[in-house]
């Protein structure tokens, strides 16, 4: 067995386990910790590690989704954080929690990490909640919701001749069809495109709103090989952000994704799989271009965010799904992408590789 082929970092770090909840429209009968805990148990069980044996724990979530202040301290109850553990939290998608954990392992301060994230959007109206992340002077007072902003980007793509409504519908249909094989997905099979939500985006071009959880375990070096038959080595990872002013950006392109991919070594060798965090069908068009993905690459075999989009977890799930394909031998080199902010403002790209078979 050989090690990772293109590692450029001090330590070889791999995703050794991934677990996720079923993603559901509502989970009224569960508090956030009740929703998170089974997934934590599942991901730890996959490695045989106990919570106390994990070197670093990092989570991602947003209190605004469910309207509960400091909800992440409540969900930490599900980890078993006593005696006090080394722990951190980001008010972001869990992909960025994974990045922090990966850095922690690179520094040598930990050999393993538990990363989890969750979103419980059902108590509120996520379209309105997300307006509160916008510039408070020029944008937030207008309450432009997440679908409206994505629709502006979609129209810019249509105007530029990069896509059209039938092409967007095909992305939506392919995603939900592929999700037929994903028992955790919220939308599976044939889903009608429906009416315009905000034109040119129809219901089918938009992600489902729902509640869900994801968790991964990272491990370094030989420990990763002990914990997992075929670790998914993170041979590159980087994230970049663009200006917050929408009018300052070319919405038909994603230079931040492209630079992150370059720095993660994506273009050094072909990939067979891409898990892209494209909540809207039109955003897949932008990401395919930025990442230079050809027709031979399996894009979002899990169904992607169009099939399940738990806020703050859908990006981490992309990394988890790509890693799981490597674990089970369905992929040798995969790219995973996560996004944050309106119209793909911030983007994280990770390249994952399995040992040569």
């Amino acid at each position, binding site marked *: 067995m050989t090690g990772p082929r293109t590692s450029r970092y001090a330590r070889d770090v791999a995703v050794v386990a991934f677990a996720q909840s079923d993603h559901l429209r509502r989970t009224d009968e569960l*508090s956030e910790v009740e929703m998170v805990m089974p997934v934590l148990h599942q991901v730890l069980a996959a490695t045989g590690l106990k919570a106390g044996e994990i070197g670093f724990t990092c989570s991602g979530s947003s209190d605004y989704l469910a309207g509960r202040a400091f909800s992440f301290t409540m969900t930490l109850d599900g980890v078993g*954080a*006593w005696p006090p553990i080394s722990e951190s939290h980001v008010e972001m998608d869990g992909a960025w929690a994974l990045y922090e954990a990966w850095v922690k392992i690179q520094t040598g301060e930990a050999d393993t990490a538990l990363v989890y994230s969750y979103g419980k959007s059902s108590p509120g109206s996520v379209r309105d909640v997300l307006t509160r992340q916008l510039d408070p002077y020029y944008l937030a007072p207008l309450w432009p919701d997440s679908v409206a902003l994505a629709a502006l980007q979609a129209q810019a793509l249509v105007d530029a001749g990069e896509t059209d409504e039938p092409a967007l519908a095909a992305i939506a249909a392919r995603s939900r069809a592929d999700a037929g094989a994903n028992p955790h997905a919220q939308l599976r099979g044939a889903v009608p495109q429906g009416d315009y939500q*905000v034109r040119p985006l129809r219901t089918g071009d938009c992600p489902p709103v729902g509640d869900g959880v994801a968790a991964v375990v990272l491990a370094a070096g030989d420990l990763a090989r002990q914990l997992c038959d075929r670790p998914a080595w993170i041979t590159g990872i980087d994230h970049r952000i663009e200006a917050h002013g929408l009018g300052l950006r070319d919405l038909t392109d994603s230079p931040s994704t492209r630079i992150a991919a370059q720095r993660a070594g994506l273009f050094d060798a072909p990939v067979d799989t891409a898990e892209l965090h494209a909540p809207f069908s039109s955003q897949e068009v932008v990401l395919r271009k930025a990442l230079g993905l050809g027709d031979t690459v399996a894009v979002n075999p899990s169904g992607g965010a169009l099939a399940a989009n738990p806020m703050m977890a859908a990006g981490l799930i992309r990394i988890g799904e790509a890693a799981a394909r490597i674990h089970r031998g369905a992929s040798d080199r995969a790219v995973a992408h996560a996004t944050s902010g309106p119209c793909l403002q911030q983007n994280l790209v990770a390249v994952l590789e399995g040992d040569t078979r």
Partner: protein
Amino acid sequence: MTAASPPEVLRAPLVVEFPFTRSLGPVQSAFLTGLRDGVVLGVKTSDGRVAVPPVEYDPVTSEEIRELVEVAATGTVTTWAWNDRPRPQQPLGTPFAWVLVKLDGADTALLHALDAPGPDAVRTGMRVRVRWAAERTGAITDIACFEPYDGPAPKAGPAPHDGVFQDPVTGIVAEARLDYVYSPGRAQTAYINALSEQRTVGERCPSCHKVYVPPRGACPTCGVATTDQVEVGPAGTVTTFCIVNIKAKNLDIEVPYVYAHIALDGAGLALHGRIGGIPYDQVRMGLRVEPVWTEGGRYPDHYRPTGEPDADYDAYKELI
């Protein structure tokens, strides 16, 4: 005994309001004051472009930028999206187009609403002009929206502007309200349902056997679900306390009064409550107390002495 049906999920409205008062930098202040006075300002970026809306720092170099110019109140749509069902608080109550508009003289686009009869009347490249709000205060909403305009762009380019106005706007109040429907989850639902029968029900950790009151569904020490329900109390022991001398807003309780940590009998940790029925300066650690319910109360109004001898320190020292 019949098998209990799962308790009905509890739901209650939850409103979160956060009106932030935000100060403005010099460029934002000039821009928003200008809108109040019917003038649209941009700022020159270090690569010579005119940014509207203007920013305090260069988007490429991050240098402070301060060179203001006046641009026209007319412009061109760079992209749009038709919004058939306006949401509360959006700029127009009737169907409208979201637009990014490059004002004449600007090199970047501004997000706003366009009042148009329907999607067929909107296209990228169409000419629009600002419709000013009737009452203006120095906010982005001083632009009520854009409206179609068939005139050409002015011949003159952006003119330098000193950004000086009478009574400049130096801050905004960013109102925000989000509405939720809160559900407490399995463990807290059981706790709340028991309280409605004036009982206090905790949950025991299957691993370390600690009884949590109120239960949150997980043992934070062991990281496992707490599933065994345990009725605790009704009496308990004051483990520690403080004397409150500041009258709380909207609270009809005379000061000074005592607020205490109370370990209910059988509970593995203390909850807190007010102590009544005893002069404030006679409350002590170890005092035995019981809950006092008021008519229709959803939780004990306060706790009063039971009259039992004080508890031994050893009996509650682990619960402080």
